[in-house]
């Protein structure tokens, strides 16, 4: 597998040109090539959703996308959604409502939740539960995750939510993270 191809990705607002094996999964490009380790891997059958990112504004499982398929695409990862200093409302709501325990499913859950709210700003509990069907959590029993997303929706209806695109601060810290390179 020595043949390599060039891929251009825009990740959290930063341009990258990568030289990759054609079979490289997007999740490994993000984690191993760009050092963005916030996107996790929890399965090998596209069931768990720990690897969820936004590809051109829509949530995808990055273990199911080849890096080459994302050529010229805009990718937002958890690092770019918000930073500790400037949380996205879904991140804030996960903190407030204890929507995470071990935190491993959390980046994927938050990305899935943000995607849902971008499409449906006023979901019912059942709609939230169905939207999360592809994201598994073993710790929380989903109770507080659902609560967090419903609460973020409420925040959004009060006008405080922004599109799941990188905020200025998010972009900076994502750059920083990317600069730290492999294994950040």
């Amino acid at each position, binding site marked *: *597998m*020595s043949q390599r191809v060039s891929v251009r990705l825009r990740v959290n607002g930063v341009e990258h040109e990568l030289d990759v*094996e054609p*079979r*490289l999964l997007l999740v*490994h490009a993000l*984690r191993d090539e760009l050092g963005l*380790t*916030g996107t*996790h*891997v*929890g*399965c*090998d*059958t596209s*069931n*768990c959703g*720990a690897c969820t990112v936004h590809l051109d504004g829509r949530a995808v499982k990055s273990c199911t996308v080849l890096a080459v398929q994302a050529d010229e695409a805009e990718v937002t*990862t*958890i*690092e770019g959604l*918000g*930073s*500790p200093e400037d*949380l996205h409302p879904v*991140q804030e709501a*996960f*903190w*407030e409502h*204890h929507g*995470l*325990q*071990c*935190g*491993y*499913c*959390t*980046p994927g859950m938050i990305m899935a939740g943000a995607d849902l709210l971008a499409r449906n700003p006023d979901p019912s*509990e059942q709609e*939230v*539960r*169905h939207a*999360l*069907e*592809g*994201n*598994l*959590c*073993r*710790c*929380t*029993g*989903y*109770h*507080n*995750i659902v*609560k967090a997303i419903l609460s973020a929706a409420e925040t959004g209806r009060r006008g405080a939510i922004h599109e799941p695109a990188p905020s200025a601060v998010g972009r900076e810290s994502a750059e920083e993270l990317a600069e730290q390179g*492999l*294994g*950040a």
Partner: protein
Amino acid sequence: MSGASDSNGQPWVGRRLRRKEDPPLITGRGRYTDDHSLPGMLFAAIVRSPEAHARVVSIDASAAKQRPGVHAVLTGEDLRLESPLPCAWVPPGVEMNVPDHWPLARGEVNHVGDPVAVVVGQDRYAVVDAAEDVFVEYDPLPVVVDPQEALRDGAPLVHEQFGTNRVHRWSLGADDVEQVLERSDVVIERRIVNHRTSGAPIEPRAVLADYRSGELTVTTSTQVPHFVRLFLALMLGMSEERIRVIAPDVGGGFGAKLQMYGEEALCAAVARHLNRPVKWVETRSEHMMVSHHGRDQVATVRMGATRDGRLTGVHIQLVADLGAYLMLLTPLIPTLGAFVMTGCYEWESARVDITGVFTNKVATDAIRGAGRPEATHMLEVTMDQLAAELGLDPLELRRRNFIPKERFPAETALGMVYDSGDYHGTLARLLEHIDPAEVRREAEGLRARGVYRGIGFSTYTEICGLAPSRIAGPAGVGVQAGLWESALVRVHVSGAVTVYSGTSPHGQGLDTSFAQIVADRLGISPQQVEVMHGDTATGPQGLGTYGSRSLSVGGEAIVKATERVIDKARRIVAHRLEAAPEDVELREGRFSIAGSPDRGMTLAEIAGEAYVVDNMPAGFEPGLEATAFYDPENFVFPFGAHAAVVDVDVETGKVDVVRYVAVDDCGPAINPMLIDGQVHGGIAHAIGQALYERIHYDDEGQLVTGTFVDYALPSAAELPSFETDRTETPSTTTSMGVKGVGEAGTIAASPAVVNAVVDALRPLGIEFLNMPLSPQRVWEAVQQAQEGVRA
């Protein structure tokens, strides 16, 4: 000396404080094992047996070795290990067959996934390709999968040398139980199957080993870094102080990471062999195949009562499928359950007989609840069966037999001493939230539409706070370790505090609850308390996180160390303000003199004196920190009452949990939000087992449910929101009165769900069902019942 500490005078303990842990985790800045990389790091992939039982005839690695970027292919003999993987349970007076268990098989494989060779190379993907180029010739041996089959004469033997598949026998309780049952008005017998499950944390395991100049550092996704260090030392023949084990952020454990795994020793041995850092990351398929499983017990439960519903005796004969090897605590798990097999009830006599069995499957060991979910399930399901037999309301049967709260500390028919309990209290609280009569009325209405609604209960007590060393240790139950916990509380010069705990939390939120406990006692904010754990290089010897022990044992060690710090702080204040140390008390964030609250010092001022020293008397020992070890006198016994309401679609067999109400009592709450979170997760885990999840091997020992496609972890769409409440009955074992809650939901929920499904289907004549209540099983039961009616 607890007391008011923040500006509005309220203690931090008891508040729903949001977690200190969260900011990095919600922004992708967590650091799990696979997020760590080192210069020169190589990746490992493991060649695993596709056979359930076979002799390894030959291993040809030549093709793999020729692949570009492959550094080595190693087999069992290459690793130069001094001892096999450990089993830490050696019960006194019990004969046990313990097979050698090596990180790479030596000559024979005993379950699918048993590792045979390791491939090490530069690239994550390339080592997997190379592993497929390792050609192993197997000579298949006969396979045994069913534990009861395995006990029959002439069954294929998993380990030839023992001449039997029996691992051990272990009993607890009275000899007269069968006589007591014989004298009883009513005796029922049920065969309760508690099927095999996977812990399935969402982060699979991962190990990164780095060996340089005689020092080994292993970063691993574990619940027990100190145990791993000790066993690495023994297996690698290294001195313990040259090994550092780090559990960084760990993405859930549920017991699946309470283990000394072969891959941990394997990566360390290979790193030493090649002088390069080595990382191995488990795939989900590997996790399902080789991370230890849980449950897998078949019990024959005989239960007796008088006509008017007084329990007389219970005799449980249990066959535990332990799999092919005995891992860290494999044979102990059913025993841990046995301790609470009498539940919340008074009995004349009780007895548990356990038989451990080898099969050609991966080992079972602790999975969330570890023995207690099985015990509670068999007991609570049989209680409902008995109630039906007696024509009594299942709650009435329970009420008639609860140990009354005045009787605590209560010695049970199995010889445990329960610290405290109020079983009528939690059940009464539960019924404030849910009215069974109303549910039954709804059920009547729904049945006309083909929906069968049922309600089920479980009232449980569990045993946690592992563990009092004298009871659980080598001379007692037989665990080859003390089971205390340690803490180091260090006040820095500025008055900020670092707490080192020997526990190793991985999602429970203990950084926050520990900080709340310390903040109140030192008159500071939890923000000023940094909690560290999971690194053998930073604090005293510790024992990790499992068995709902971290607060009731680890937290008590922190309290003890904090009290030592306070003693010294008082002496410093007394000296500076010319008062007696006994007169120094914490008021509104200051250590002040009783009777003259204006005279006092903050922790920061005290720390300044402790480290600058020149104001202190001659002979003063500088510094402000203390280490403490806490060994509990007894276990703690949380309890509660749960109710499930289910709808069964008899056309499809599909079961929906429409309401779930839980009242748990784990003593006074440190952080109620975290307790709720633990209960939610526990309930979901047990609903998963009751309805969806099942590890299934076919007759050839092939794993059928080896990925998340076929092993059905429940998603948000399958579960309802939960209703939770608490009562608070303090433990008499711990100074804070706290018990433990990490496993409670898992222990309580499966019988409530199964009882609810049976309740729903009783109008069809269905009296009893075993888990998992998959659509297929329920549908078949409904078909049979309807044919029975037609016939």
